[in-house]
């Protein structure tokens, strides 16, 4: 080791040493991660999107607090016969249909349709029914936050699982090659040939009946783990294929050959040579996959194969609201807007992240 050090000193000056000698300035070494962070910091739109996403996450995480302190009701509490004070006037949570006698003229008058829930009160009812009520008299704002909580858990959880599975498979396939690579690639081929939504609904619907109890896995039928696992399994090929391709090309690079020649163990080569080089791709994938999985969860729940009612999620809320869009459009609009905001935020941040991490993107931005 000592002789090696001497040899370098003898033959080559590094750029920073040259600069120090000739111009008396010092060059500070900066890691690619630091450079990427600096590029990202300048991208105000991407940072704003990240902030928006964190705000959504925080709001959904605080759902129990909002329910208890502000709305004073739970996500599954019905208020069918309740009366709420809006601007000091009593309003029925669910309109009472039928007829009534006008106290002044004594005429019999029609009240309008029965069972129409109260619309958004915004803040005029002291935080109650901020976004209106549904046909069971449940507070939509509370359900929206609890639903977001579930949707985000499933979206982020399945993105984590999916990326992790894809990464392990891609590393194994790319590093070992041979029959292992053949097997994993064929697995990806089959998964990619499946009609994604069909497979997801079939799995989700089948598992939702009695849950899944095999060996160490013990899932109840309403468990959030079912949609999480289904989504991550169904999409694994879409992340695994490109990652495998990247690792395959890295595998041929000189630095990997050097590590092999030095006698590096497979474990070491996979985790300290290959992994750091695809980490930026994985990070970008992860962000965009969360966005995608939130949409898939919503679709699954909308079709009844995801989160099971009365447990809310953005997808189940839309499917509940769909039938009432004529009388209570806020039931459909709220969760939809929440999904669009969250997914747009994640996509914008993911784009910014890719631009910051991928040096090619810098060239692209200069046009």
């Amino acid at each position, binding site marked *: 080791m000592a002789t090696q050090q001497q040899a370098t000193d003898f033959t080559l000056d590094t750029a920073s040493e040259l600069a120090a000698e000739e111009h008396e300035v010092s060059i500070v070494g900066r890691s690619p991660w630091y450079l990427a962070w600096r590029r990202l910091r300048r991208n105000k739109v991407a940072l704003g999107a990240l902030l928006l996403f964190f705000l959504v996450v925080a709001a959904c995480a605080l759902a129990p607090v909002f329910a208890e302190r502000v709305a004073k009701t739970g996500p599954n509490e019905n208020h069918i016969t309740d009366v709420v004070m809006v601007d000091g006037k009593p309003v029925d949570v669910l309109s009472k249909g039928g007829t009534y006698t006008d106290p002044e003229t004594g005429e019999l008058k029609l009240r309008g349709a029965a069972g129409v829930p109260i619309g958004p009160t915004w803040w005029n009812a002291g935080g109650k029914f901020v976004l209106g009520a549904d046909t069971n008299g449940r507070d939509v704002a509370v359900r929206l936050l609890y639903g977001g909580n579930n949707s985000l858990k499933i979206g982020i959880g399945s993105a984590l699982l999916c990326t992790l599975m894809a990464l392990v498979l891609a590393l194994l396939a790319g590093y070992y090659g041979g029959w292992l690579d053949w097997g994993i690639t064929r697995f990806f*081929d*089959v998964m*990619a*040939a*499946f*009609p*994604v*939504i*069909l*497979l997801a*609904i*079939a*799995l989700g*619907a*089948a*598992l939702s*009946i*009695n*849950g*899944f*109890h*095999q060996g160490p896995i013990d899932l109840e039928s309403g468990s959030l783990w079912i949609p999480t696992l289904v989504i991550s399994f169904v999409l694994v090929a879409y992340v695994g294929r490109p990652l495998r391709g990247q690792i395959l090309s890295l595998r041929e690079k000189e630095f990997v050959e050097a590590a092999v020649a030095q006698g590096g163990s497979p474990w070491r080569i996979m985790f300290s040579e290959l992994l750091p080089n695809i980490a930026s791709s994985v990070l970008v994938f992860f962000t965009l996959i969360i*966005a995608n999985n939130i*949409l898939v969860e*919503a*679709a699954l729940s*909308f*079709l*009844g*194969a995801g989160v099971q009612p009365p447990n809310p999620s953005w*997808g189940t809320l*839309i499917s509940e609201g*769909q039938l009432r*869009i*004529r009388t209570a*459009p806020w039931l*459909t*609009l709220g*969760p*939809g807007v929440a*999904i*669009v905001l969250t*997914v*747009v935020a994640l*996509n*914008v941040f993911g784009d910014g992240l890719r631009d910051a991490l991928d040096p090619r993107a810098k*060239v*692209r931005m200069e*046009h």
Partner: protein
Amino acid sequence: MGAFLARRLIGMFFVLLVITFVTFAIFIVVPGGDPATRMAGKNPSEQGIQNIRETWGFDEPFYTQYGKMMEKTFNAMRPGFDDPNNELISYSRRENVVDQIKQRLPATFSLAIGAAIIWLAFGVAVGMISAVRAGRLSDRMITILALIGISMPVFWLGIIARYYLGPENAGIFPDGDYVPLTQDPIGWFYHLLLPWMVLAVLFIGFYGRVLRSNILDTINEDYVRTARAKGLGPRRVLSKHVLRNSLIPIVTLFGLDFAGVIGGGAILTETVFEIDGVGQYAARSIRTLDLPPIMGVTILGAFFIVLFNVIVDLVYAYLDPRIRPT
């Protein structure tokens, strides 16, 4: 070329085989999936369940059941085959599955083809416009719209569009439903226009983004500079030199997306607009855990996806001589 095709066709066969087996296994392994109990009705007698098990062959080992199901599936697809005892019959309604799918194919194809034309045309236009005007206000606006397009759940957009643009509000479009082309071509077009646009929105945004970045990458290539230096006009450089190369990835995307839409991707749009297509048939069957229709639709979908994979490879080879298969 012949060897390439043969190899791909054999691969296709095996992928389809595995897919049918996995689909079958999902419904065998999953607890509560016992079809006999469900078919026997609300208060089944033990004998009744046993009878159903025997007539439908549920008591046989799973590989025999799988083999029989596959045999029935392929029998039913054979032209001129007519043997009621050897057809793929659904558990819940006892209908011939292949006939049911055939009846619904025109609706699904109408939806998919119309939407594909819209999304391809608009996607390419959006990508080109925003690439040519990169960095300007119009590019920013398009980029934002494209982003919102890919971030919207298609079923939500469908519900909202159907209600607010439908007869009860704007009155521009009819309220869902499907009219066969052979019955009433104008009604067919009129009823499908909104579902087409809703289904296309996601892909327009996606293709626009991909094409934009492809064009911006290609514009810097040496051969484009050469074309400009030769004195070709910007319009000709864009259409003949830049676009030809930038469109290659779009071909792949288009092939796979189109197959995906036919193979179940239209399920959400069909549900929202009450178009009685293959996707809705699958959704309904999944709700009742009716294996034979799910099997039929899955095979159909997987077949289209695998088929379009091969077609995409061939088109790719035609467009880019460097990767022509030997």
